[in-house]
């Protein structure tokens, strides 16, 4: 009845299972630990991407302005990514800072749709590394000019890899020309067409603010207002909410927008967590309202 051949087969199967379970066990322990760390993390960085021809130092002034008059100084980490995907870090991220700024800049910072696609790929490389190192479960995105376009492309093509574990709460674009320099929506650029084509992939729970500058009635000096406005064809009725704002007055030109006082206020009010005085009551429970 107990044929020896079958017993041998069963023993072999058992041995192989045990052998495979050993690496499986260590993998499982490691992955579950990472999941737990990410879940418990209080970190919610603001990740900024500068526009074309700008370096990682583009937002230094903006960060200084944001850190003025607040009891909490946000730390600033700058990541430059070269064409071959090597990351160069500068600045720092303080351990007690729950809302650090991370600037991701590209060595190849040229304009053009084909380059934006490449930059989105580099942004993804950098994002992957940062997400792995700092283990945050939510973040806010900010993009000036082409930076906003790179974020949009990244959200449509790369974000789904992370969306199970990392939530983007908010995206703010500043003078982002969704239709490049076209003044009329009748003429859609290839990029605009693609953005609209894949808009369904945009996260439904994301809040989007699109800021434009008004140097005159038509543009911020470089980007036509109608090109920024074209963003509504991408985001409206697709994300949780989409708000457009136009900033005028002094320093409303395209390049001075990141240093504009009103822009700084808008970022503080809409993008950053409302600063509360440290106390025993409000340290917890403020995190997962928006699930």
């Amino acid at each position, binding site marked *: *009845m*107990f044929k020896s051949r*079958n*017993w041998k*087969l*069963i023993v072999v*199967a058992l041995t*192989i*299972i045990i052998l*495979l*379970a050993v690496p*499986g*066990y260590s993998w*499982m*322990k490691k992955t*579950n630990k990472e*999941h*737990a760390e990410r*879940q*418990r993390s209080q970190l919610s960085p603001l990740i900024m991407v500068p526009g074309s021809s700008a370096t990682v130092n583009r937002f230094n002034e903006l960060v200084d302005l944001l850190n003025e008059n607040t009891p909490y100084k946000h730390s600033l980490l700058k990541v430059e990514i070269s064409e071959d995907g090597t990351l160069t870090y500068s600045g720092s991220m303080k351990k007690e800072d729950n809302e650090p700024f991370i600037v991701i800049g590209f060595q190849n910072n040229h304009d053009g749709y084909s380059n934006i696609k490449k930059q989105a790929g580099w942004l993804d490389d950098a994002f992957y590394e940062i997400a792995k190192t700092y283990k945050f479960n939510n973040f806010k995105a900010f993009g000036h000019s082409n930076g906003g376009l790179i974020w949009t492309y990244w959200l449509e093509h790369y974000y789904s890899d992370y969306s199970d574990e990392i939530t983007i709460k908010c995206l703010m674009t500043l003078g982002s020309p969704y239709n490049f320099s076209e003044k009329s929506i009748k003429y859609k650029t290839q990029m605009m067409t693609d953005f609209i084509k894949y808009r369904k992939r945009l996260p439904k729970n994301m809040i989007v603010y699109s800021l434009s500058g008004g140097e005159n009635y038509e543009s911020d000096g470089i980007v036509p207002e109608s090109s920024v406005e074209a963003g509504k064809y991408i985001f409206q009725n697709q994300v949780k909410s989409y708000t457009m704002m136009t900033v005028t007055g002094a320093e409303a030109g395209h390049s001075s927008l990141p240093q504009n006082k009103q822009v700084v206020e808008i970022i503080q009010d809409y993008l950053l967590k409302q600063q509360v005085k440290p106390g025993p009551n409000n340290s917890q429970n403020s995190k997962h309202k928006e699930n």
Partner: protein
Amino acid sequence: MVISKVKANFSLTSIVSSVENSNNLLLTVPATALASFLSWLGLEVPILDLGNVAGSAAATANLTYVLRRGSVWKVPYPYLGGSMISIYGVMGGCGTILALAVAILIWGRRKEPETVAKMNLWPLLFSSSRGFLIGLPVILNPIYALQLVLVPVVNMLIAALAIFLHIVPTPVYTVLTGTPGPLVPFFATNGNWPTLIFTIFLFCLDVVMMIPAVKLDNRTKILLKDYEMEDDRHV
């Protein structure tokens, strides 16, 4: 009013999701029996859907609880349908079928089922049961009907008892597709050793529960011959 509400909810998805998000064994155990019976008929979808907790809010709540607090004993849904069915009921998809194959390999005396079991041992180990279900066949084969329905139910009840007695924690973690059935609860509890021992015991019990069916199958040839002779006599 009530009738229209019932009507509105009458679709496979809504039934499945109400069972998989349920913490009530009085609902989940009969549902498992029914789904197992349907899989014996060849309809795999209900039992696969019941055990697919990827989109289940309750399973996510359990996992989030454990990840945030680090404690496994006070999860919001200790007997969550979806987890219990997939992890203990059918042990990752085909742990119970694997038990049948092992029982055939040990106690089977007919050449054909033995060959099928041998050929399908490796696919079954890595959670692929179709070859075996069709090859033996298990589907629509009255010999295996009772066991196929009963074993998942017994597994779930014993596991629920063990969870109630705090012998094993509620499985909350997601497990890779293709994990060998008897290892699924171990991996789904982040490597809880009592769970592994408990599951080995449960698996051995499953194999033992399969013996009557195998013994019956051993005798089919003789029984069939008797039946045919009886038939011939009438002619």
